[in-house]
């Protein structure tokens, strides 16, 4: 049974259609991330699940019950908002206990539940502070506390980390995920940051313009992007998408790619392009256009034909703009897309549908081998 189910949910404001008949099932105790660019309908979906918006059509089921017409407070959900929506005039304890107070939970019990939640989140020392006196991460935890104390088994989160700085964001990702697993929560999590999606999700739902573009486990979404859109959206630096000419060569070059007929784009992830050993003759040659040093990594932008190719190498590499590099790439790391942007599956690039396979080491330098100098 799925914990949350959307059946043909549509949403329109006048003429503006935000969601087109979305169908979605989310398993109990799983972490589902709604991912997509700004304006694609993530928040709308979440708010429809919460009952904060009414769908134009379709049904919402939570825990098997049709809740389409129930107000938010009767759906057994908790919610964490993008900027936390902490009540600035209430202390941490009061913020966490807000729902309990509103629902007239006995004082003693409410106090106990607030203290438990605070202890769980490491907020015990801060109970008397006002949100304004807390750091971003602490605020985030208070917002979480408010959601937890309701003991709802479904927790909805709308970009809860987007206001934090990089370092804190990383820490909070861990904490959130760990908490979700510990408490067995069903989380629906909205973000437009694919790193967050990758690192936390059991299920990634990629939305684009009110439609589900891909709905998969993160690894599968990463390994087998269903469309150009998905390929572009998931991964940093994003997947290289090289246009192919009619012959399957990289545009403006004579590099053959082994593309199936009708392929319009070749996709390859930056981390899958490697520097070939200097002696390898069959390597793909590319010229460095620019690079960015990131400590552990160096991100290079090179030129192949008329297309740009980004690759990620060890940060301690010393390279200059204009250097000629020899590159190679495994055949399994190549993705092909047709003119409509749909993925084309070739036998060679099929990867296991489940993620239980063994550690896979790049075996052959597919691209380089096929490269015709």
């Amino acid at each position, binding site marked *: 049974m799925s914990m949350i189910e959307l059946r043909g949910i549509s949403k329109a404001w006048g003429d503006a259609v935000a969601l087109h008949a979305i169908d979605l099932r989310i398993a109990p105790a799983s972490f589902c991330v709604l991912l997509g660019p700004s304006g694609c309908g993530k928040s709308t979906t979440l708010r429809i699940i919460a*009952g*904060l*918006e*009414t769908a134009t059509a379709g049904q919402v089921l939570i825990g098997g019950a049709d809740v389409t017409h129930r107000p938010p407070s009767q759906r057994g959900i908790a919610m964490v908002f993008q900027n936390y929506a902490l009540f600035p005039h209430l202390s941490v304890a009061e913020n966490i206990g807000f729902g309990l107070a509103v629902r007239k939970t006995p004082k003693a019990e409410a106090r106990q539940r607030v203290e438990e939640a605070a202890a769980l989140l490491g907020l015990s020392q801060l109970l008397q502070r006002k949100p304004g006196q807390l750091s971003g991460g602490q605020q985030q935890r208070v917002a979480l506390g408010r959601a937890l104390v309701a003991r709802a088994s479904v927790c909805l989160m709308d970009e809860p980390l987007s206001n934090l700085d990089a370092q804190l964001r990383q820490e909070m990702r861990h904490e959130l995920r760990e908490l979700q697993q510990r408490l067995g929560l069903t989380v629906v999590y909205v973000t437009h940051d694919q790193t967050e999606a990758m690192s936390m999700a059991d299920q990634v739902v990629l939305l684009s313009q009110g439609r589900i573009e891909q709905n998969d486990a993160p690894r599968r979404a990463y390994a087998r992007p269903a469309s150009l859109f998905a390929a572009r959206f998931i991964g940093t630096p994003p997947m290289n998408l090289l246009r192919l000419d009619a012959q399957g060569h990289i545009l403006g070059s004579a590099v053959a790619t082994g593309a199936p007929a009708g392929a319009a784009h070749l996709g390859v992830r930056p981390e899958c392009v490697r520097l070939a050993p200097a002696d390898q003759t069959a390597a793909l040659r590319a010229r460095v256009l620019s690079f960015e040093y990131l400590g552990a990594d160096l991100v290079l932008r090179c030129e192949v034909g008329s297309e740009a190719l980004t690759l990620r190498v060890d940060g301690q590499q010393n390279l200059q703009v204009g250097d000629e590099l020899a590159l190679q790439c495994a055949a399994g790391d190549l993705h092909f897309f047709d003119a409509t942007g749909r993925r084309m599956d070739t036998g060679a690039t099929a990867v296991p549908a489940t993620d239980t396979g063994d550690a896979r080491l790049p075996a052959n330098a597919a691209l380089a081998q096929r490269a015709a100098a």
Partner: protein
Amino acid sequence: MSSPTPSSPQRTLTAVYAWLLLLPAMLILLAFTHLPTITTLIDSFYSTPKGRRAASWVGLENYAVMAADPIFWKALFNNLWYALASIPLSIGLALLMALWVNEKLIGRGFLRLAFFTPTVLPMIAVANIWLFFFTPQYGLLERLMLALGFGSHNWLGDPSTALACVILVAVWKEAGLFMIFYLAALQSFNPSLREAAAIEGTPRWTFFWRVQWPLLMPTTLFVLVNSVINAFRTVDHLFVLTRGGPDNASTLLLYRLYEVGFKYWDTAGAAALTMVLVVLLVGVTLLQFFTVDKKVHYQ
């Protein structure tokens, strides 16, 4: 606002709920603002009932009488002068005060208190103190003038200065309140704006004129509406200072209204005057909202 688009029965329920919330305030407003205004409007077309003579329909006669009354015109023009002088003066001073006490001046707390004090003093009593200021010969103003070598002057007793004195008292009374509004706005500004301007080498005056002043526009509009209303409403001090004299040199519309209504017991004439005031005030306010408001909202 954020409520979900409700279905029809829900919408009715919302409307009922909203109107229930509004009801108490609306009832009071209706009973003490709207109905009296309408009654006044109707009264202005009838003659003043006196004893056995019941009110009779006279059409626009009350307005005609009013228009023929030179004191009405005097009061109207006085009031326009009063507004024209007191509004920019009190707003200007309020702004200046706010700019000062927004900075770290020595004794800022005292300055704030000093500027604000007049707002809380009861006009009815304080007007008597002002009377002393303007008293010829030994009044404070006089002493100052004499000390500076000027001759004595009968400030309130001279038609050419009486109105100015009344204006001065009004400005003194309301500048402090407006200062608080300006101060609040100034303090909410992002301090980086000032730094950004400083790095460009903006002279202080330019900074005020190009940055602070435009950003204060919404406050200015608010204050402006208030001061226009006050210009037609504050007459307490007239009762003590000049009673509209000498020879109506300082009479104002509301004071004239009081005279017509409560001294002459000419309720019809008073009703006509009230309608003039209402139309004037509503007109001015609307005009402000439509002309200034456009320039005010920069977001």
